[in-house]
C-alpha cells in the first residue's frame, strides 16, 4: 500500500496535468515511491500503476527505460559515478578504482552490510565539476579527489 505521504506527493504531481492525463505523473510517482522504499519492486510498480489507473506494463516500461529507477535493490546508499567523456578526461577512473577498493565491490554490486552500491553513470549534466558522483539520485558531489571521496564515505556511514 502506498503511504499517506507518498499519496500526498503524487497528488501534488497530478495537479500539474489535465485530469484525464494521470499517466503523466508516473515518472514522479515512481520516483517518490523509490525514494521512500529504496528501490522499485514489482509490487511497488503495480501499486503505482493501480493508483494512477494505468496498465501495469505501462508503468514497467517507464521504470525500466530510465536509468535512475532501480528495479533491483541497491542498498542504503547508491553511489553513481559518471565515467563519460568529460569525467573520464579528468580521471574518473581513479575515483572508480578508489571506490571499488575502499568498498570492496564492483559496479552493480552491494557491500555485504547492505550499505553501499556502486553504479556507473552516464553524463549528469554537470561536467564542469568533473569528476563527480551522485548519492541516492539526489546529492551531487563534484570536483572529487580520492581524499574527498573518503570524507564523503565517512559522512555517510
Amino acid at each position, binding site marked *: 500500500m502506498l503511504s499517506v505521504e507518498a499519496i500526498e506527493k503524487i497528488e501534488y504531481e497530478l495537479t500539474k496535468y489535465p485530469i484525464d492525463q494521470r499517466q503523466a505523473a508516473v515518472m514522479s510517482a515512481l520516483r517518490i515511491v523509490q525514494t521512500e522504499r529504496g528501490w522499485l519492486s*514489482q509490487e511497488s510498480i*503495480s501499486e503505482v500503476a493501480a493508483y494512477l489507473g494505468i*496498465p*501495469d*506494463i*505501462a508503468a*514497467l*516500461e517507464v521504470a*525500466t*527505460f530510465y536509468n535512475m529507477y532501480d528495479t533491483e535493490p541497491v542498498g542504503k546508499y547508491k553511489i553513481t559515478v559518471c565515467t563519460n567523456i568529460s569525467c573520464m578526461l579528468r580521471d574518473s577512473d581513479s575515483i572508480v578504482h578508489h571506490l571499488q577498493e575502499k568498498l570492496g565491490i564492483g559496479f552493480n554490486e552491494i557491500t555485504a552490510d547492505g550499505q553501499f552500491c556502486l553504479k556507473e553513470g552516464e553524463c549528469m549534466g554537470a561536467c564542469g565539476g568533473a569528476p563527480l558522483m551522485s548519492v541516492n539520485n539526489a546529492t551531487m558531489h563534484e570536483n572529487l579527489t580520492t581524499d574527498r571521496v573518503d570524507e564523503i564515505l565517512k559522512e555517510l556511514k
Partner: protein
Amino acid sequence: MLKIEIDGKAVEVDHGTTIIDAADKLGVAIPRFCYHKKLSVAANCRMCLVDVEKFGKPLPACATPVAEGMKIFTRSKAAVEAQNSVMDFLLINHPLDCPICDQGGECDLQDIAVGYGASGSRYTEEKRVVFNKNIGPLISTDMTRCIQCTRCVRFLKEVGGMQELGMVGRGEHAEITAYVDQSVNSELSGNIIDLCPVGALTNKPFRYSARSWELTRRPSIAPHDSLGSHIEVHVKDNKVMRVLPREKESINECWLSDRDRFSYEGLNSPDRLKVPMIKHHGEWQETDWKTALEYAAGQLKDITNEHSSDALGALVSPNSTMEEGYLIKELVHGLGCGNIDYRLRQTDFRLDGKRVGTPWMGCNIDEIEKLDRILIIGSNLRNEHPLLAQRFRKAVDNGAELSIISPLDNNPLMDIAHKIIVTPNDIVNVLAQILKAMSKLQKLSLCLPPTLSALLEQIHVRPNTEAMAESLAGLGRNVNLIAPRVGIFLGNMALSAPRFTEMYSLAEAIGGVSGAKGGILPAAANSTGMHLVGVMPSATGMHARAMLEVPRKAYLLLNIEPELDCQHAALASAAMKKADCVVALTAYKSKALDNATVLLPIAPFTETSGTFMSMEGRIQSFKAVVKPLGECRPAWKVLRVLANTLGLQGFDFDSSEEVKDKIFDGEKPSDYAWRHLNNNMKELVEIETKIKSPGLQRVGEVPQYEADPIVRRSEPLRKTKYNIKRLVRIHPDEMRLHELIEGDLVLVKQDKGSAILPVRSDTHVAMGCVRVAAAHEDTLGLGDLMGDISIEKISQEQADAIKANEMEALS
C-alpha cells in the same frame, strides 16, 4: 488529389496519403515490418526507406505523406543501399535458424531478406539472446527472434483496447513482454500471431505440428458468433491444423477472435462421435447407420402414433446451417408436429407473431464505426461478440458516445459516456425513462402510440437517464450534433431476459424517436438464418421453453447438448430424463446426452457444406474443408434419409446447394433476405413499468468459450483465464446485506434446483443481482439465465451433507 510518380509510374492520390499506401495502390512493392494498415504508424523498423527526389536522405514510406509532384524511387541505388543496410542491421541479432523456426516458410523477414538483403553479414560479434515469456496457452514466444517492430504492442492497445504487452528496457536491451508473469488475456490475442512478421509469436496449439507448405488452405465461415467472419482453414492429412482469418474488410477486416481461431481444437476432440449408437437396456451400443436410422424412425413414429404428433419436440442449435434448419423443420412438420425452435436461450416469447419479419442487427457491420451515439442494452459485448466489440471501440475512438444499460458493469475496454447498471427487471423502467426524455427532447411525443404516451406519463425521469437520452439526441459531452447517427442494440442478456419483449418494444420506440438504426445482436452463427427459414413453432406449436416445461415424450435434437445449450439447465435435463425417446444428431458423445436413445454422428461445419446468415443478414455458404470423421455424415444428409425412412415426401435433395435453392425458391438470396429482414412490430405489446423485482435476480451469461459444443472442447481455450470454475459474484454492498464474505459457500436456489458455489465480491454486478454463469456442470441444477434466485450461506459440513444426499438419491 495529388499527382505523384513512383518508379516512373504516375498515380493520383488523396491528400494525406502516405508513400506506402500510394505504392500499394499502384502495386509497387515496398518492404515493411512495422507498418500495418490497421495500426498506428510507428516508423521504427526503417525497412521501407525509399528515395525521394530533392531529399538528401531516404524517407520512411510508411510515415511520409506524399506531396504534389513528388518523385519516389523504391529501387534506386540510394533506396537499395538503405534497404540493404536496414536488413543487415535486422539480421545481426536475429538467429538464422529458419529450418527449425515455426514461422519458416511464412516469415516476412525470411522473404524480405531474400529480396532486399545483402548476401552475407559482416557481423562477427555475439548475438543477443532474449528469454522467452509465457504469455498464456494460445501464443508461444521465441523472443530472441523479435525485431521490435511493436506491431503486437500496438495491436493490443489500439485494437484490443488494453495495453497488455509492452517494450521494457532500452536500446539493445529492449524486450517485448507482458507484465511480469502475466499472460495476454485479450479475446483477440491470436491476431498478434498473424501480425508478428517473424517467428517470435507463434500459434501455441499449432506449434511444430506442420510446416506451412504442407498445409492446404480452404475458405470457410466462422461458426460461433453471428459476425460471419471469413476464415481460412489449414488442413493436413484430412485434419484441421489451424484456422486463420481471411481478409474481409466489411466483416472481420483482417482479424479473428480467439474463439474462432482456436475453437478448431474441439473438432479434433476425443469426444467426437464416430459411429451411430443406440441405447439398449441402458447400455450404449455401436451400430450401423441403417439400423440406427430405422430405429430412430421407428421410435419417433411409434410415439407420435401412440400419443399424438404433438408428443414430439425438436430443439435445434442456432449454430447449425440454414439447410439443416430447413430440413429439420420440414421433417417435424411432415410428422404433423409444430413443436420446433432454435431459441434455446430465450424465456420470453411474447413477441411471437407480432413481428413483421426476421430480426437482425438493423445495419451493416461496417456502419458501426461511423455511429455518433450508441446505446447497448444488456450485452457483455466482449464475451458475446468479441470482434464486433472492436468495431464499437473504433466508433468510440472516432468520438462516438457510448451508453450502456446492463446488469453487469463489465469493462468493454472503451470509454463509456453513460452507464446505468440495474437488475434485468429494472432495465424496462430505465428504457421507459429514456423514451420519455427522448420524446420530450425531440418534441416527437405525438408520434408515439397513445398507449405508450399514457404509460410514459407515470414515469419519473432520473438525471442519469436524462443525460443518456440527451446524448442519444445529440447533446454531447464534447460536441453537440444536430443529426447524430445513432445505433441501438440489444445483446444476449437482453435476449434471454424474462422481459425481453418489453425491452425490445421500448428500444424500438426509442429508435423511432431518435432516428436510430439498430436491432438485436443475435447470439449464434446462424440465429438470423434459423429465423428466416422458420425453425420456430407453428401457430399451435410449442416454443423451446414450453417443450421443456411441459415435457414431450420424444425429442429430436440437432447439434445440441440440452443442459448446456438450453436456458434452463435443470428443466432441460429433467425433460430428457423423462422422455421415452431422444434422437440426437450430434458431433459429440457427451454426458449431457446420457439420456438420449439414439446418437447419430453428424459432421461439424468443417466437414459439411452449408449456409449461415450473419447478424447483418449476409448469406454466406461454405464447403467442407475435410472429409467427415469416421462414420459421421453431414446433418442435411442424415435428416434427408431420416425423413425418407419416416416415409416423408419431398426430401430428395442430392446436395446442400439444392436445399439452399429450395429455401430461396429461385430468388437471389440477398434479395430474399432483404425482403424478410425487418425489426418492426405489427402491434405493440403491453409494457409494465411498475414491476419490482422482489428478491435477488440471477444474471447468467454463457462464457464465450462455453458457447457451443465445439468451442467447449477446445483445450487451449479452456486453459485461458476465461475458463474459470463457476462462482457466485455479488456486489460487495449486497454481500454485506447478506452477511457474506469472500470465499463463503452459498447454496444457490433457483426454481427447484440448486448449486453450491463459493462467493466472490464483484463491484461490476448490479445491486440486487447475483451473477452465476451457465453452461457448466457446476450450475446444471440451476434454472434460467435471468430470473429469480435465492442464496443462503452454508458451512462446508452442510455442503458436504447436501452433496452426500444428492449422491445417495442418484444411486
